[in-house]
């Protein structure tokens, strides 16, 4: 934990998100420092995925402020200037989806180099070399030329992680990365995520129900309940000194 240098990479202030009459996020404040791993957990519908999607503006926050790597954006309507700022912000935030969302018409390596080449203008040779490194890191060096359809769910998700890493983000956002996987494939994805945290000291916000992973890897855990962060603390505090009965009830249900 010595890698956490105190610099905030992500800062969320008074974040609110409404879908019509439904208020999903009711004022979220969250700060994630460099190298920190934050696990967000809670019942489905409690707003944890929405928070993640608001951080990189896949959803526009209704109110509040999101800051990623020094790029500070207010919620509310999108304007022309803001659209470009959102793009800049996204360059610093890698996202891994529950359903992987790999590009089916590109090989594994093609998926990984797509962002650097198309968005960042990296030369294909350079991106390829870096992409192969990343695929090796997630244990898929031999699958570089396979199309997603020929990969297992666990393999696809690891390619998706490599694709996000290739953009060299300041923070990685994981939106239930193992929820769509069969039990026997979850381990390989979690192992890759664990190595990101311990070897690369990657800043990560992870929405997950994998409490074992959280206990082992997270520096901090946030329990989401009805659109607010009800309880926050180290894994030890959360698991052993649970303060709220709602948290206890949820933990009892998933453990």
């Amino acid at each position, binding site marked *: 934990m010595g890698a956490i240098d105190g610099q905030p990479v992500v800062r969320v202030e008074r974040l609110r998100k409404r879908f019509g009459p439904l208020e999903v996020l009711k004022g979220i404040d969250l700060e994630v420092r460099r190298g920190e791993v934050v696990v967000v957990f809670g019942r489905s519908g409690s707003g944890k995925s929405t928070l993640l999607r608001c951080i990189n503006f*896949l959803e526009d926050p209704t109110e509040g402020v999101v800051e990623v790597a020094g790029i500070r954006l207010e919620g509310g309507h999108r304007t022309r200037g803001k659209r470009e700022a959102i793009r800049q912000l996204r360059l610093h935030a890698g996202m891994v989806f*529950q359903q992987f969302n790999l590009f*089916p018409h590109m090989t594994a390596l093609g998926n990984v180099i797509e*962002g650097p080449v198309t968005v960042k203008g990296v030369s294909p040779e350079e991106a390829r070399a870096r992409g192969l490194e990343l695929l090796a890191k997630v244990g898929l060096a031999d699958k570089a030329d396979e199309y997603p*359809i*020929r990969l297992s769910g666990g393999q696809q998700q690891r390619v998706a992680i490599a694709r996000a890493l290739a953009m060299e983000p300041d923070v990685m956002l994981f939106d239930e990365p193992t929820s769509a996987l069969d039990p026997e494939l979850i381990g390989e994805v979690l192992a890759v995520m664990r190595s990101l945290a311990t070897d690369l000291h990657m800043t990560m916000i992870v929405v997950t129900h994998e409490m074992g992973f959280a206990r082992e890897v997270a520096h901090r855990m946030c329990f989401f309940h009805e659109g607010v962060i009800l309880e926050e603390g180290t894994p030890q505090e959360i698991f052993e000194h649970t303060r709220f009965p709602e948290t206890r009830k949820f933990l009892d249900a998933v453990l």
Partner: protein
Amino acid sequence: MRADAAAAGAEVAPAAYDAEIPRGSLGLLLAAWLLLVEGALGLIFLPIIVITADARIPPGDIAAFAALSVATAVGGGLLYSRWPVSWWLALTAGLGSVAWLVVDRGLTSWNEVVIAGSFTVAAVVLLVVGRRAAGRPEAMALASAQIPFRVKLALVWVGIVFVLSLFFALAGFDTQFMRDRFGYIASGLPFTIAIAVGAILLAMVLALLGALGRLSSNPIAFGVSGFYTSFFRGTPLIVQLFLIYLALPQIGSNLGSRNLTELLTLTAFQAGILGLGLNYGAYMTEIFRAGIQSVGHGQSEAADALAMSYAQKMRRVVLPQAVRVIIPPTGNEFIAMMKDTALVSFLGVAAAQAELFRRAQLAGKASFRNLEAFLVAAALYWGLTTIFSFFQGRLERRLSRGYVRAAAAPGRRRGRLLPGGRPAGPANGAGGTEVPAHGH
């Protein structure tokens, strides 16, 4: 008691059923259909002969023709019955027809030779092999089941062509004229194809822009594309063509600008490409829109998360996947468009640049051989669309195969789609697992 009877019935049922095909069934089938078709043809042509009959055909001949037609049709049909006596009826009708054609008509034309020949075949088949199988319709059904569907289909087509040829022959068809003018009419093909190709290219560009507009949250883009599709789908193509060809120059002259008038005065060829392109572009907007929407929302989000711009997202992620859905129906539109190029002929094309249909009109009118000229044109259009339909079908099959393998949602139905070999199941820790479908 009843149960016993049923049980006994069930036991003997296989023996009672005539599963064996007796020799000669196939021959009987052939004879039956030869007679049926000949009889039916006779009955079809009977009214024509009666109506067009002049003094050269004696009424006795017509009566004999009618009687023989009915007899052959009934005789052939009765071969399907359970009465063995039907064999005698059919044979009599067949031999009677041959006799009449030879003795009374004297086989004066090749038509009569062909017809007499087929009756002879039917009669000979009946004599040689048909006796044994007569009166056993289920045996004929079994024999019929042995003939592949494709063969029967081909025979039906041959029959249709044969009947049509007979009609045309009766109608005093000028095949010499068709041969003479074929080259002239066919030389319109390059113009027809050029109009269709030019218009489909224009239509594809417009359809892409229209689809992006229909999917846009920008009110200008949405409104303009909405107006475009509404107008060009809501008015007749022929009206649009005249607007472009005849009405557009009027705008220039009304504004008193010679340059504008010249600019807006299009040749029929140009107006045809513009009009067809605009019209088909409006229809194809829907095809393109559906194709783009068929690409899952997750793909768009993944591109967004990589900080792609709208243009990058479309070019690199959405359109390459949408194309697989868009190409087959676009091919259909192209085929339809090749036929609609005929409308351009109404714009009064210069004779040297005339497309297919215009040439057929000119050739037909000039010598009052409209039937022949338009049939040549129809045959050429038909050939053209058939050729493209063939390639279209192949393309469609290839794309759908590629689509299923390469562009199915990640993880979906993977186990089944793996092309051969890899064992499904958790044994290898990788293959054959089922992942819930997209939640979007």
